[in-house]
């Protein structure tokens, strides 16, 4: 109480990371002459190529597959001009990449129309797979693996997140404004598909009254318009969710609806451009597969040596090493940080200033966890609930010692996961020896 008065009335400084509350105007990106599709999963598993150089491809045709199942779907009709080793968006080493020259007809319609309210869930899930609907998230995965039959869980509550996840990104808000009428249908359809008892639409607080009037019949939950409240774990907490609650981004839900109702393969992605000054500048509807070089050129930016090119938002995005990487269904923003604005990490000792404690949304001890990671005390990190970290990155953003806290936390998590895996292996081996 006293704290709120001091901070709000007297303006005592506390770092804040507000989310965009108004969508910026949308421009549609022309189909570029080359589309590029990396045959790799978001966590670095390579896919099998299903096409070869010179092949004519149709919208809806598989370009890559994994274990006999289509994994990358071509969104347009065109010709495979080359298969090269290209850059991956998420920092994996070079991936096999299919380059396609799109034909004049760029329609993404590849299938017959289904009825989102009447056709059976099996049929709709089959459509998700053949259309290749992936989740709009840091690690885009097939929808059926997240909320569908392959997820292995019974979904209780499904949340459609109609909010942007990072500051200065307004792509979801722009979509919300454009397609308000479809949101209820999409949410209802997905809820029916995954058998959820409850479907809610989460919107940022400033949009709640608007959402309540347009989405009649659908439950609307208000989420504070500040980072990181719109990240999945915190959204789940806000809807009083459990382990069987799942959050799906609005754009994924709409892509699923389009695949069903209009037979479309996901073909475009709404992407926010964040200017070199760090402000949201505009929204672009970009064809999937557009290479970063075309994207930046169209945006009027020319990245130079030592600049930082980021795909994703300013707090969770991926720094790029090449402009050959291309837009996929998990990209919601891109930005360029000029070399002179780049803040480098240093490894000064933690001075216990407590800035990270103030911003941590989960009330962890990020500074301490960072130190545990730094000195290899992973068990201690586990004691201090490192597994509850949602990796929002705010601790590192405010660190006065400029310590790479998030990386140390990730390292600790990773080491703990490895340790658990090896323990499991050891235990199974032990059981097997005992049995024999």
């Amino acid at each position, binding site marked *: 109480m006293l704290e709120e008065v001091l901070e709000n009335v007297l303006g005592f400084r506390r770092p804040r990371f507000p989310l965009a509350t108004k969508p910026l105007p949308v421009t549609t990106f022309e189909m570029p002459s080359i589309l590029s599709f990396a045959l790799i999963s978001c966590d670095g598993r390579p896919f099998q190529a299903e096409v070869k150089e010179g092949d004519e491809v149709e919208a809806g045709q598989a370009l890559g597959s994994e274990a006999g199942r289509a994994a990358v779907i071509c969104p347009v009709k065109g010709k495979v001009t080359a298969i090269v080793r290209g850059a991956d968006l998420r920092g994996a080493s070079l991936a096999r990449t299919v380059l396609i020259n799109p034909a004049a007809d760029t329609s993404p319609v590849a299938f017959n129309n289904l009825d989102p309210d009447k056709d059976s869930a099996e049929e709709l899930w089959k459509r998700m797979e053949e259309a290749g609907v992936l989740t709009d998230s840091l690690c885009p995965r097939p929808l059926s693996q997240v909320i569908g039959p392959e997820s292995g869980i019974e979904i209780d509550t499904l949340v459609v997140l109609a909010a942007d996840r990072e500051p200065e990104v307004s792509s979801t808000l722009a979509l919300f404004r454009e397609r308000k009428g479809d949101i209820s249908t999409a949410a209802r359809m997905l809820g029916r598909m995954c058998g959820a008892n409850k479907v809610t639409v989460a919107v940022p607080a400033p949009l709640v009254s608007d959402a309540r009037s347009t989405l009649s019949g659908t439950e609307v939950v208000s989420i504070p318009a500040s980072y990181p409240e719109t990240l999945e774990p915190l959204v789940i907490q806000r809807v009083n969710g459990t382990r069987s609650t799942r959050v799906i981004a609005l754009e994924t839900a709409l892509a699923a609806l389009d695949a069903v109702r209009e037979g479309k393969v996901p073909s475009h992605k709404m992407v926010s451009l964040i200017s070199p000054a*760090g402000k949201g500048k505009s929204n672009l509807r970009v064809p999937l597969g557009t290479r970063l070089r075309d994207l930046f050129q169209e945006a009027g930016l020319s990245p130079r*040596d030592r600049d930082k090119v980021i795909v994703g938002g300013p707090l969770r995005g991926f720094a790029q090493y090449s402009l050959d990487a291309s837009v996929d269904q998990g990209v919601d923003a891109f930005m360029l940080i000029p*070399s002179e604005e780049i803040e480098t990490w240093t490894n000064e000792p933690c001075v216990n200033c*407590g800035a990270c404690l103030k911003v941590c949304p989960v009330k962890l001890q990020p500074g301490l966890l960072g130190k545990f990671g730094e000195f290899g005390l992973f068990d201690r990190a586990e004691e201090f609930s490192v597994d509850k970290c*949602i990796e929002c990155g705010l601790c590192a953003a405010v660190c006065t010692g400029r310590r790479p806290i998030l990386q140390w936390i990730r390292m600790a998590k990773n080491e703990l996961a490895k340790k658990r895996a090896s323990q499991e292996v050891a235990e199974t081996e032990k059981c097997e020896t005992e049995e024999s």
Partner: protein
Amino acid sequence: MPSESPLFTVGPPPHWRSKVSVSKTNYAFILALLPAALIGALLQSVGAGGLPALAEAPGVKLDIVAELIKELGVEGWLLGLGGSIGLLALGAGAGLVVEYIVQVIFRQPYYATNGHGVLMGMLLAMVMPPTVPWWVLFLGVAIAIVLGKQIYGGLGGYPFHPMIVGWLIILLSWGYHIRLVEHNSIAAIHPAVVFFILIGGVALVALGHVRWEVPFGIIIGVLASWALFNHLYPDNPKAGNLVEIFTTTHVILAAFFIATDQTSSPANKTGIWVYAIGIGVLYMLIRVYGKWQDPVPFAIILMNILAPLADRIRPKPREVVIQNG
């Protein structure tokens, strides 16, 4: 299709970072302290610390220069001002130089320019009387930097406030040099100086360099224990006049500039309150039952000892469900 791409800087997220840094915080402290320090130096030389006091004090510094300048007919207070400003400069300079030398010897990265050593020296100079011999101040700063700070690995590692360590050691070892006249240090010479310290301190809080709980808690601790003591023993005058406590001692300086040191204080909210109120209460306790009228260093170092313990009072993590996707 091989294509040319510039060579980009890559790095892990977050890609945005606040502009606050350790050195900026230290410089903010120094800047916020500077007006009070300069005004204090001026008042010290005009008031208690003019030439007459200098000449009478044992172990007087600059006595040859003083004689010379007197011969030349320079005003006494000007000389005194020179002495007071000289003290500040000596403290700050010694902080910088000693820290640099220690870091060279210890082969540490050179963080001397981050301003922390300068701040320590400046703070120590501000609590010295004008009659302090230069070598006592220098020794105090050197002890603060070497024994109080660098021996533990420098900023971030020390358990006790370095300046308090330096202050205590010279107070207990060469006390006759720094206890000659009460309330005549730069920081406590006049209520106006305390007022400027307060303004600087509030500015630090408003800019977010200082956790507001610390000065608040200390002041609350002092007020509450003063009230309690006067309630229990209405006839006992040992607690003193409240206005006097706040305007003629180092409490305000300690509340905003000394106890707020980040490394030697807790960082969790409850811990900060325990620490800050503890300092306030201990201050009054020692003042009433001890022999020290202004026991700032004792109160702070005792709570420094407790700080790691107080910092173990941590909030419960928020219950979040992390999906594996």
